[in-house]
């Protein structure tokens, strides 16, 4: 079951990178980055998953040797990663807007003043 998650996460990362390579639209490049980011988030969450585990929310007295819960650290990492992903999208979209203003196009093949 969890193996499917791993396959799906690497598929998403690969799909995201594939999008960036093959699509000539700047907005699609941003979408590709987001897809790759979601793939990594899925990977992180899957690594922390324990079959049958509960949510890792306990108070000081409740936690015992028998407590069985999923790993909380990857969940914290995912939250950070989601925030960073949102920042990437926001910043790249603002750059895309500015690029469209000054170049009048979103085609990567025409946005190549700097080359060679």
């Amino acid at each position: 079951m969890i193996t499917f998650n791993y396959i799906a996460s690497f598929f998403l990362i690969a799909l995201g990178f594939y999008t960036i390579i093959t699509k000539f639209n700047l907005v699609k490049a941003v979408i590709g980055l987001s897809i790759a980011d979601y793939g990594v988030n899925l990977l992180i969450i899957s690594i922390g998953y324990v079959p049958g585990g509960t949510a890792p929310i306990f108070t000081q007295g409740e936690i015992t040797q028998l407590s069985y819960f999923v790993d909380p650290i990857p969940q914290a990492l995912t939250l950070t990663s989601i925030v960073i992903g949102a920042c990437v999208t926001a910043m790249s979209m603002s750059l895309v807007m500015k690029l469209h203003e000054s170049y009048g196009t979103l085609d990567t093949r025409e946005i190549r003043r700097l080359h060679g």
Partner: protein
Amino acid sequence: MSNFMNYIHFPIYSVMVLFLGAFLIVVLGKNKTLRSIIAVLSVSISLACMIALIKPVMVNGEVIAYWMGNRVPAGGYAIGIAMEVDALSLFFGLLISTAVFVSTIYSIQYMAHDENIPQYYTLLLMLAGGVMGLVLSGDIFNMFIMVEILTFAAVALTAFRNRVFGALEAAFKYLVVGCMGSTCILAGTIMLYANAHTLNFAQLSAIIPGNMNTSTKIAFALLFVGFSTKAFIVPFHPLAADAHGAAPASISVLISGVLTKSGIYGIIRLTYFLFQTMGLSTFQFLLVFIGCVSMFLCVTMALAQHDFKRLLAFHSISQIGYVLTAVGLFTAVGFSSGIYHALNHTLFKGLLFLAAGAVLHETGTTNLDELGGLSKKMPHTTVLFLIGAFSISGIPPFNGFASKWMIYQACYQKAVESGNIGYVLVTVICLVTSVLTLASFVKVSQSVFFGRLPEKYENVKEVSFGMRLAMGIFALLCVLTGLFPDLVGKYLTQPAATAAFNASSYIDAMLGEGYAASAMGPFLPAAQNVVFYEAGVWSPMSWLLIMCIVLLAITIVAVTSKYDRVSAVSSGEADAKHALFFSGEEAVYSQVGGSDLFWGFKHNWRHYFSFMHDLHSGILNDYALWAVVDLALVMLFMLIVL
């Protein structure tokens, strides 16, 4: 924890003060004086903290392990977030805080005419804080966070002057490929976590080498490629070139002097500590190969450039190639020469970028074909530029010579020790690259500072004192590190190299004495006998004397001779067949432009140059493809050789 001035708190101060300064400038940055004071104060405190750590860490050889909130390891597991400062971290910390300090001083007047200056300082301090946090962190996830902060700040600063030709484009390409790298770092980090169930760097270094499997090998590839995007080594060099050309000069100093070093730091930590695979000749081959390709490819790219800052950007990656090659040799001399060159590169490349910024500030262009003769108008900048150019070209007694000389020695010594003839070839590539670097700086000095002054620059003035002061600091440091390689070796590079070859003491400092031996068992690396041979033996002072005598002789000849330079090029003498005249109206003076100086050489290599020009197409998809191909190749390499 009562004593707040205890030096173990200094690493966290040096990071926090930068972020605090960034925050305060957002709040109070309206006032011009106030924001300059805050910016200079925070970078000075950060630098002072780093300098204060030289004695305990570099001289006494301590490793500072600092647990946030005093959450020390429990039950053999690192549960808190840690900072760990050994000599290697401190070396990079010192280098970074120096570059940031000088760049901030330069910014005050360089950026005075721009809009949104508070935001500029906020981003500058965020960038500085991110890189500081990266090199001082002892936690791999925090390293990722810092990588993201510095990438974001660097992208925003690249696009800061968004009316500049290509600034937005450069920033977007850097953002996309940089974020692909960051995604790789995160994926690699989490795959290591899946194997070792810890994020503490020291504990990972103890667990991973003994438990290699397919997923850790792929994690290595992901992390390696991720840090490669930060170091801009091949195949990520076009991003650096684009970003440098568009960013303000004070930011170019940080991108070339600081960001690339953070990538190199990541690669060193990855190969020397986390996986401890550097003992294998295949991994030495990997680093040396990428280093040599970066070195040679970028110097030839630089020869074909027409823009001052873009040319410097390619040289920057070429010098990073030297650092990577030397580090990849896995010898004590090689490592110390590599990081010595990293230090020198930050100094001389910072100086050159600031000189390019001064030219841009006064003339409004960095196009080599338009400039000329500025030595008459900007004599101080010219002298400072020449110091930087001599340093990067490896002319004694400046610092570039000292470190390059050590790198040649280290390569050759490696060839003798390992019996591998390939390392002789590496030495040759290093030498050829150095020659081409010199050639390209002859071209730059000729087309910017010498030759005839175009009429439109008649009113150009020398830059302000603050900017010259910043360049002067770099120039002074270039000369000092060149003249006293023994002191640099004793207090900076040799402790750092010793630290790099003793991963177990790094682990023990964090998790208690004997942890490395018990956790790693048979995988514990044998205690390295770090010997620094008579490395870099030469007497800088006598070279300085020779240099002075030669300069004096040139000056005397130039002053006393009757040869009149002006008449030779511009007066309408009858003997026109020796005049410089290419085409067009004879009355119009045409200078031997930067692109023409080595035309014979370029003509012979025209197929190579045009191939490289077409290859660096400027299309985002191509650069992304290179990144993925690089990732695939490193993964394949890992799965085959290990």
